[in-house]
């Protein structure tokens, strides 16, 4: 996050050759890949991402950005949704396969000193960068409340992780097959009214984040959002990933992906949803 305290401690990114340790389907169209990536595992901060080269040759050339979902020793975990060429290739990778990534990248979540209670609001795959954050907050003694949404029970993700570290987990499904029927923004609204919160962290579809940001602003709680943009370089050189803010155009890859919701000028640049 531009100008935030954490940037001072950020470690420069490096090209790291990594090995697939495991790669499993965890929900319909969603996989979890575990990578042996000691340098990234040691240096990554919650909310940062890695830029992964999924194929050699020239069939598709660009890397793909993925949040680091969790760290376990020398391993990092990536939670991914199978959408197109790149993520299809990722789903085919098996234990022992090698690939390379650039990381850790971007400014992650900011944990303001002295906070007592944080709300994490996730929509769908938005849970990915919130996993590490939930663990880190809990480890620091910050009370964590989670609101997480999915189309249905089968596509609800990482519930166990959240239930392991959070004080309260509220679930919303479109069809009501688990938790409240409806969108996660409804749950969020209630929690903002219910709980004494110091900060809101959110990730998910941009339209959802925008609503959460407005709700938080309405409740007077600071909010951090994590925005996706199409990325070529991932390291700040190409300007493909810009986000409009009240401080001018910012690069999602180095100035974000996490931004203070208060500075974001929401527009229609969201990546069209695939499904």
């Amino acid at each position: 996050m531009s100008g935030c305290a954490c940037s001072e401690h950020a470690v420069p990114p490096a090209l790291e050759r990594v090995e697939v340790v495991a790669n499993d389907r965890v929900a319909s169209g969603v996989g979890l890949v575990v990578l042996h990536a000691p340098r990234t595992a040691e240096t990554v901060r919650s909310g940062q991402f890695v830029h992964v080269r999924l194929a050699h040759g020239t069939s598709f050339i660009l890397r793909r950005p993925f949040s680091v979902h969790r760290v376990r020793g020398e391993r990092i975990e990536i939670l991914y949704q199978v959408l197109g060429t790149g993520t299809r290739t990722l789903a085919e990778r098996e234990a022992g396969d090698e690939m390379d990534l650039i990381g850790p990248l971007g400014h992650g979540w900011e944990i303001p000193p002295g906070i007592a209670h944080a709300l994490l609001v996730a929509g769908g795959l938005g849970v990915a960068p919130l996993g590490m954050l939930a663990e880190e907050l809990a480890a620091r003694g910050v009370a964590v409340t989670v609101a997480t949404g999915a189309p249905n029970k089968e596509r609800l993700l990482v519930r166990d992780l959240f239930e392991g570290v959070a004080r309260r987990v509220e679930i919303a499904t479109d069809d009501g097959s688990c938790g409240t029927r409806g969108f996660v923004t409804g749950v969020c609204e209630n929690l903002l009214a219910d709980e004494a919160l110091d900060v809101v962290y959110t990730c998910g579809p941009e339209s959802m984040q925008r609503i959460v940001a407005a709700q938080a602003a309405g409740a007077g709680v600071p909010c951090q959002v994590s925005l996706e943009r199409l990325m070529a370089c991932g390291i700040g050189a190409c300007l493909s990933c810009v986000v409009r803010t009240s401080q001018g155009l910012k690069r999602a890859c180095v100035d974000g992906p996490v931004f203070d919701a208060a500075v974001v000028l929401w527009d229609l640049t969201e990546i069209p949803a695939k499904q």
Partner: protein
Amino acid sequence: MSGRVSHTVDMSVKLGELTLRTPVLTASGTFASGREFADFIDLERLGAVVTKGVSLEPWEGSPSPRIAETPSGMLNSIGLQNPGVEAFCEDDLAWLSSVDVPVIVNVSGHTVLEYVSVIERLEVEPRVDAYEINISCPNVDSGGMAFGTACTPAEEVTRACRAATSRPLIVKLSPNVTDIAEIARAVVASGADGVSLINTLLGMAIDIRTFRPKLARIVGGLSGPAIKPVALRMVWQVAGAVDVPVIGMGGITDTEDAVEFMLAGATAISVGTANFVDPTTVMRVTDGLAEFCRTRSIARVSNLTGAMRT
């Protein structure tokens, strides 16, 4: 590295007055001013850093989405977003002052006067070694490519820039033309010390789920391995048409690609899109070129230039 041959290869090349340590440059707009790549490579081993395009005033660039992936390539419509020449001098050139590498500044403008004004501002900066005049950007509405697709405007820009500086002047050509050799001859006759090519091919992609163009600006510039055959053909045509050094680019990803461009007539080569794929590409290609020459007992990398046998 082969153990049998141990002689060193002379990797230097001459771009007019400028002697470069190696023929490997960066393509404008794909390398910023090098700072972001310093974590991955040794900038001082580059032939030169070619900066992103710089204009007189800050430019906002195009709306998002600005890129789309295509088979063996990508489209971009960054639209020359840049903070303007003043901020460029304060930030980028200042940062570059501690790096020992030649700097070629890529200059953009909507009007002939704007190109000249940018150069005038840069003339007082000692850190600038040469200019690359971009008359070929497909992503701005006026200026840009419009200057590069006909002889008369190309000549006007070149003449005006030539009058503004005695530093080496390289003109960057557009591939979106019927006869690139003709434009090359025109800019050389107007005072260019060198030409660089190719800029991106104008292309487009459509999202069939939304029925919308993938780029907010509808069309954008195609780069990457896909365009290599076209770029190579144009470098060959231009090298045969003019007597000044040619900087070749378009899809260069590895040593083999770089060799091809030099054989076709390039004095130096630039790596663009491949920097995004592998940020160490320029180092790989530099080492690869030296090794290529070494194993073939080619004493000077410059001997490759135009060495294609027909």
